[in-house]
């Protein structure tokens, strides 16, 4: 149902903003319309054929991981990418996986240091340092 709504919205938007056919040529809205129609028809077919199932059950650990992923973005803005990843790693390994804090911290710091060496120093990728500019 979410896919039908999303594809329906995309189709309406493309029909309103991009033409299907203009000046005797296919318009830029043709492909979005075809693609959206495929999604809508296939999803409606799935619903009508009763092939929907009971609905997904999301396990608590996966939701814990998801929260960690979402936290990466604001944390990066504040403290930089590698410290943010290290912090999320410690939190997930400690709180979700139940790993001992020293072990989780050691793992996170060593991975962050290795990544810094490879990407920042060797490959010269300018990783974001965040507002605090720690790393």
């Amino acid at each position: 149902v979410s896919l039908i709504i999303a594809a329906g919205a995309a189709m309406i938007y493309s029909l309103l903003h991009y033409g299907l056919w203009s000046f005797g040529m296919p318009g830029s809205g043709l492909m979005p319309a075809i693609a959206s129609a495929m999604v809508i028809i296939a999803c409606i077919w799935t619903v009508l054929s009763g092939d929907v199932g009971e609905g997904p059950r999301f396990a608590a650990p996966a939701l814990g991981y998801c929260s960690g992923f979402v936290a990466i973005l604001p944390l990066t803005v504040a403290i930089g990418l590698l410290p943010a990843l290290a912090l999320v790693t410690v939190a997930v390994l400690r709180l979700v996986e139940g790993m001992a804090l020293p072990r989780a911290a050691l793992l996170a710091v060593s991975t962050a240091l290795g990544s810094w060496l490879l990407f920042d120093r060797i490959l010269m990728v300018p990783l974001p340092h965040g507002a605090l500019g720690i790393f």
Partner: protein
Amino acid sequence: MDLFGDLALGFGQAVTPLNLLIALAGCIVGTAVGVLPGLGPTATISLLLPISVYLDKTSAIILLSGIYYGAMYGGSITSILVKIPGEAASVITCIDGYQMARRGRAGAALTIAALGSFFAGIVATVGIAIIGPGVAQFALAFGPIEKTSLLILGFTLVLGIGEGSRVRSVAMIGLGLLLATVGVDLVTGDERFVFDVAPLRDGFNIAILAMGLFGISEVLMMAEDRDSAGKAVPTPTRLRELLPNRSEISQSAAPVMRGSVLGFFLGLLPGGGGMIASFASYMLERRISKTPDAFGKGAVAGVAGPEAANNAGAQASFVPLLCLGIPANATIGVIMGALLMAGVTPGPRLIVDHPEMFWGVIASMFVGNAILVVLNVPLVGLFVSLLRVPRAVMAMLILFFCVIGAYSLNNNMFDVATMLVFGLAGYGLRKTGFDVAPLLLAFVLGRLFEESLMQGLIIGHGEVGAFFASPLSAFFLAITVLILGLPLVLRLRGTHVSLPKNTE
């Protein structure tokens, strides 16, 4: 000059100590680039273009082509071990290669990939030397109309990929095509679904989608698997167990041969290359297999065929460049830039004006493939040892790998956010019974399809009949109708047909 004389001239160029060293460096850099998501061969070759100016023109092309086919193998390593395709051409290997790794056969999968690629490389090189220049002219018969029909046939074959039902695969193909339309439309110049967000003007990057849908969603699936969160995937320790057994070798022999030939011919097409070749090979193997249900669960043929096709396609894509001056894909386009910088204009005159370079590059393919096998087969044990890392730790390593890889594409956090969103969406789709492989493949083929469709309609003055007027196009469409219609006709006539699980 005869073929052997030409090849002798080429080997005289390729087997000098300097060129051997350059080919080795190219293969090492290429493998590393293939392993690291984000740093694709196109970007790496672009970065190394200034260095190539200081080299002799043959050496420069040997270096750049070494990176190209090194990356093809490197991408397979992460596909098999952690289900992250380093390259678009490795997406298919994720499906069965990763399942083999989970069953403790990662070493066998990696060795089959390396040896299959080596064999395919030899087949492609011989093919290029013998029939490449002649066959390249045939590729010109593929205009936008024929390419559109071929891609429609391709989408029909994609329906058979993955674990979901056929109808769900149609929805995923539609979603992939829809995502491919984001960005500036190259035909009309319109911005579609950009909403004034500057990074969206170029559309979504294939690596972002692949890392999100496969890498991040796999991390979340791993998180759910509580029984083995602290355990590693079973890995053999003895060398004999690391290598493929007799049964796996016999299962992979025919797919490698078929994949090599198929990959060679598909690689010749402008716009072709490893990606289309690998997925066409997967579908061919699945269709002709006596056990199609084994595909998606770690079928040896699902790794051997696509890997061979991928490498053969990558090498054959040099033919349109060297013989016609047409770059088959973006990476080959950058290599063409290197040739032009060296004062060499690729095209039909290349083989006449610069025979030493033409045959030198072909001979270097032999050398490059041998180097890749020597380099990678002994390292299989090292690669497999990565799987001994407990799943929870591996999940975090994948997170680091994907986030930094996504950031390094354009040095912006928007790509990271997009990848994480695709990861969460991929997880949700997988939990609701949708397989994300058709989505990714449709996304990759989507831009090519739209471009060909638009050009085809313009050529045919807006008449759909133009797609039936071309004999080659009509042939592809007829096969499509046959594939879609035959099971339905047989069912209506009451004939019992044994279909794979995912074909309703």
